[in-house]
């Protein structure tokens, strides 16, 4: 059972908080689908962890909206924004339900693998080998999103998962989960396996 604790007020910018909530809920979905695809309980647990973060952010968002409302017109706007916050929470709940499929050992039919292979966004898992060109670079440096149309969504190093990494330096033995186009992932897998010297 997760420990539920009070969320303390602090001033946060509304627009950034909304964007952050959107990013986290998208990440949760990717991780949850990865958990289902690779039948991986650790990834599913990461999703549950992020879910508590979203819950906190919803409270913070609403507190900030309440304090920002001074008159009727403000109230009209804030009600709409608050609704968007709750709906983002609903999306993260949906992601948590996918993680629940894995955590509760509900079957993942083989057809699911096929679905992920055909979807626009593919997911792949790979281990960085000794002579890979990825070693020593940060996720940010690689700029994979614009180079090959993919994102690294998680790195597992030893027992720990780094979720949504950017400044992490890639090391041999790191296990990474990436999302993106099939061709981009193919290139990344070749790079991780030290089969290529550069990306093109």
């Amino acid at each position: 059972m997760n420990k539920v604790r009070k969320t303390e007020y602090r001033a946060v910018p509304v627009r950034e908080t909304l964007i952050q909530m959107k990013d986290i809920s998208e990440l949760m979905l990717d991780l949850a689908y990865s958990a289902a695809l690779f039948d991986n309980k650790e990834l599913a647990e990461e999703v549950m962890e992020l879910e508590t973060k979203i819950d906190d952010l919803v409270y913070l968002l609403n507190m900030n909206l309440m304090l920002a409302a001074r008159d009727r017109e403000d109230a009209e706007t804030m009600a709409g924004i608050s609704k968007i916050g709750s709906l983002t929470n609903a999306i993260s709940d949906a992601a948590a339900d996918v993680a629940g499929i894995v955590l509760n050992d509900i079957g993942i039919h083989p057809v699911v693998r096929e679905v992920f292979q055909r979807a626009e966004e593919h997911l792949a898992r790979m281990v960085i080998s000794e002579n890979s060109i990825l070693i020593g670079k940060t996720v940010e440096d690689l700029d994979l999103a614009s180079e090959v149309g993919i994102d690294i969504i998680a790195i597992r190093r030893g027992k720990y998962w780094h979720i949504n990494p950017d400044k992490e330096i890639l090391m041999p033995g790191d296990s990474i989960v990436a999302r993106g186009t099939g061709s981009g992932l193919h290139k990344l897998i070749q790079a991780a396996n030290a089969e290529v010297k550069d990306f093109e």
Partner: protein
Amino acid sequence: MSELDIGHWERITNDLVTLKNTSEMMMDLAYSAVLLNSRYLADEVMLLEEQIDELYIGFQYEVLSKTKTATDPRDLLGLIRLGSVTERIADAASEIAEVVLRGIEPHPVLQMVIQDAEETVERAKVGEDSPLAGKTLRQAKIAEETGMWVLVIRRGDKWIRPRPNTTLKPGDVIIASGYSEGEEDFVQLLTGKSSSEN
């Protein structure tokens, strides 16, 4: 597996692929609609919502009719859950779009700072003579040339999410956001004509 059976799984797979792709695209478009305060994008989300509802019912029928054959019910439960997740995401996205359609007044709290240039959503069709027809988005360099960021591509009754290796075809409608100065360049680049000829 009989041939009939393979066709059945094929439909289930196809439906789930479309549900997943569509729900994720709706989420992207719904947030863009909020951040750009664009009714046009919100309307697009509502159109997709109609499509996805029908698809979801079809998907559920297909999966439930599998119970007639010898399939582990636990496996089917996982599929039903995955389908339901995509449907809930689509619902949430369309409700977000609804908030935009009700009207959000630009408010300091959203920092929708309207400076010298206003950020807008623009759409244009790739013309037969456009230099972009047949190019991938990466080759097209739309953002570099015009400052407009591609949000989604409409091809007939399909919506396509922009990816670096998406190939543009004549007749594609490209929906993009950016500052209003870029609009003219954007339309010109796509249609292959200068705006005075239009």
